[in-house]
């Protein structure tokens, strides 16, 4: 057991922090900062940040240098994520490219694919989105109906995807489509790389309950792509996709954890100013105090889980089904954080304003946390996975 960082790693941390302090846009995170107003401007702003990260040497930190990465380890990656989290640094627009497609290509892609796609991805020149879910294939992803048929040297794709984050900012989409109608449902799927500017691709934004507009429906109408844009072999897409989803559930844990800790700190700040009906402060009231600590403990434990995951990745090179545990844990905890925060706000919970202490942050957590228990494998699916894959309970 050694959870300390080496002096070299600590030096890396210091450099990362310094770089972040210099490069995070001035005023970011303060009420004075002028946020981009339209979705389009927001996309540009985030892509700008992706480019800065690349220039600073903080894109693809653990990816091989030959593909534009930094050739360092996951430790440097989490160190950077932690520091970025502490400063609430902006997030880029190429999240899915870096988090999902990159690792997928590194594991399943051909040499040509890695060389072609990874460097522009890291540079922020090519932003990616994920075309997995469909209206009738949510939890039951393998029921997907989008189909791809080979026509000469090209695949012709038809179908509809949904919950496609950042599709409206993306240059490329990685898409699961059925390539063998006759095969059992898990066996006839392939993993495609599709340019978003192909004729026949159209995007319709989906507004979420928290009024975010990150999600989209994407329609493919006779979209033609080159034959070689398949990752991991034709009809082998399910295996590739399962790898991809493992990345989604497992990594990024520590950066996320730091951001939760920041949110928690804001809640404590609120509680230390919130006066209850009896004139005392919420933070001094044992009821709110115990509830807050219960959440605090889970945020801390999330960090321990994260360190364990990283350690496993470093020492064994891969993650197992315990990534489901991680996802189940943080999504549940985040819902609790939102609920406790609203309780602390009490009669002020349902509304907010620019002049209010929380500036709507707590309400945002309360509503937004309800999405994470659904997307990327719902709570119910994660529990099925744990029961079946880890505990060996039969299907």
């Amino acid at each position: 057991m050694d959870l300390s960082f080496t002096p070299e790693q600590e030096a890396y941390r210091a450099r990362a922090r310094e770089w972040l302090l210099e490069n995070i846009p001035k005023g970011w995170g303060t009420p004075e900062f002028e946020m981009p107003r339209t979705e389009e401007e927001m996309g540009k702003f985030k892509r700008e940040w992706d480019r800065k990260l690349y220039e600073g040497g903080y894109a693809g930190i653990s990816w091989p240098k030959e593909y534009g990465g930094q050739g360092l380890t996951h430790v440097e990656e989490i160190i950077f994520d932690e520091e970025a989290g502490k400063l609430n640094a902006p997030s880029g627009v190429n999240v899915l490219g870096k988090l999902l497609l990159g690792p997928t290509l590194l594991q399943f892609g051909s040499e040509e694919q890695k060389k072609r796609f990874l460097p522009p991805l890291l540079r922020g020149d090519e932003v990616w989105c994920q075309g997995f879910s469909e209206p009738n294939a949510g939890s039951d992803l393998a029921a997907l109906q989008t189909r791809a048929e080979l026509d000469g040297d090209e695949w012709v794709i038809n179908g509809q995807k949904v919950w496609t984050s950042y599709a409206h900012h993306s240059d490329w989409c990685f898409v699961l489509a059925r390539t063998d109608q006759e095969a059992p449902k898990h066996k006839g799927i392939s993993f495609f790389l599709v340019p978003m500017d192909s004729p026949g691709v159209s995007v319709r934004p989906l507004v979420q309950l928290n009024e975010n507009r990150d999600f989209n429906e994407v329609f493919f109408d006779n979209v033609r792509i080159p034959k070689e844009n398949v990752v991991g072999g034709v009809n082998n897409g399910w295996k590739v996709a399962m790898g991809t989803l493992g990345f989604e559930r497992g990594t990024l844990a520590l950066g996320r954890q730091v951001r939760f800790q920041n949110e928690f700190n804001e809640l404590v700040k609120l509680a230390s100013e919130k006066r209850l009906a009896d004139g005392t402060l919420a933070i001094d009231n044992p009821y709110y105090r115990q509830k807050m600590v219960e959440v605090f403990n889970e945020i801390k434990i999330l960090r321990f889980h994260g360190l364990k995951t990283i350690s496993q990745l470093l020492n064994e090179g891969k993650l197992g089904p315990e990534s489901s545990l991680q996802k189940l844990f943080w999504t549940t905890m985040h819902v609790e954080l939102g609920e406790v925060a609203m309780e602390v706000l009490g009669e002020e919970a349902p509304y907010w304003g620019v002049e209010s202490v929380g500036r709507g942050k707590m309400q945002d957590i309360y509503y937004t946390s309800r999405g994470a228990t659904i997307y990327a494998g719902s709570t119910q699916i994660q529990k099925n996975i744990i029961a079946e894959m880890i505990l060996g309970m039969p299907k």
Partner: protein
Amino acid sequence: MFFGFTEEEKMVQKSVRNMLEKHCQTEDVRKFMEEQTVSNKIKELFGNQGLLGILEPNGEEVTGVTYAILIAQEAGRALLPYPLLENVAGLYALKTCKQHGDLIEKVEAGNEMLTIAWRPESAEAFATEDGYSLSGKLCEVPFAADADQIIASVRISGKGNTPQEEETVVVISKDHPSVSLRKLPGTDETYPIYDVAINNYPLSNANIVKGIGMGTGHQLMNKVKQLGALLAASEMVGSSERALYDTVEYTKERKQFGVVIAKFQALKHMAAEMYLKVESAKSAVEYAAWALESGDPEAELSVSIAKSYASSAAKKVTGDAIQMQGGIGFTWENDMHLFFKRATRTAFLYGDSYTHNEKIAKAAIDAIAGASSAAK
């Protein structure tokens, strides 16, 4: 012993439900969310039906509470964008005073609209030559922009030895130049809330509903708040019941893994727990209605139990409804978020669970402890 509703009560509930199913579909609610103006149709319907004046003061008792909770339940079910609670409880307040006959008539007919300042922050009136001059801030006033009259409990300086004695219930015109509004941004756009600032509003005797140095203003406002909390609880029963049943229907149609998802035991058990909460909140609301109506000594306690339980239940049920519907439940297009947001707002206003629980603790727990220590 009869824990249920008469045919007449059921008929009234049914007619309100039919009316709202016709005139207050979620498209209508969404239209309100954009325009933020109460539809004339809704005002007219409630005016025509004569439902708003259903509560009548009768000494310590209040008649009509059973009807009122059934109507409020339907308002919740329909996500009604109209201050039903405030008009029903407000008319009750006006009826405790003889001089507001004209206003009562107008409001009952749907020609004027009331609202109530549930949390007057610091409104105080000082004597002037002609009467009093009122200034200060009223918090959490629903639909203030659309309302014609605001009922509030304010202090009249010097008219009592304690702030409580000074408390006086008044009704003031929202359109007076001394009154200004600020909409509070919130997530429940079906029930907008305002802060109201008052700067030298001239109060005359005609504005008085109850009080002036007798402590009766405080008593009345306390009763009005009980009615508000109970009707709010009943609203939540309606909105969470609909969220549950709509979601159960969805699970019977939505297929995953080759079967309708209603077959999955995990979803069945979630639905069963939601049902348990809805029915329990409903029993609590119904009991409290009877208690208020019959002047039961535990009436106030029962209202707090109903509001506290229904608040927790409604947040949980409407939140779980989103979860059960999955990705689609998290979209703006789907109606579930409207129920979740409405339940959340109603849960925290009219006294949140902590506040009502503490009232219950003072009334019941401390009494038990006191009785046991007295018995020693």
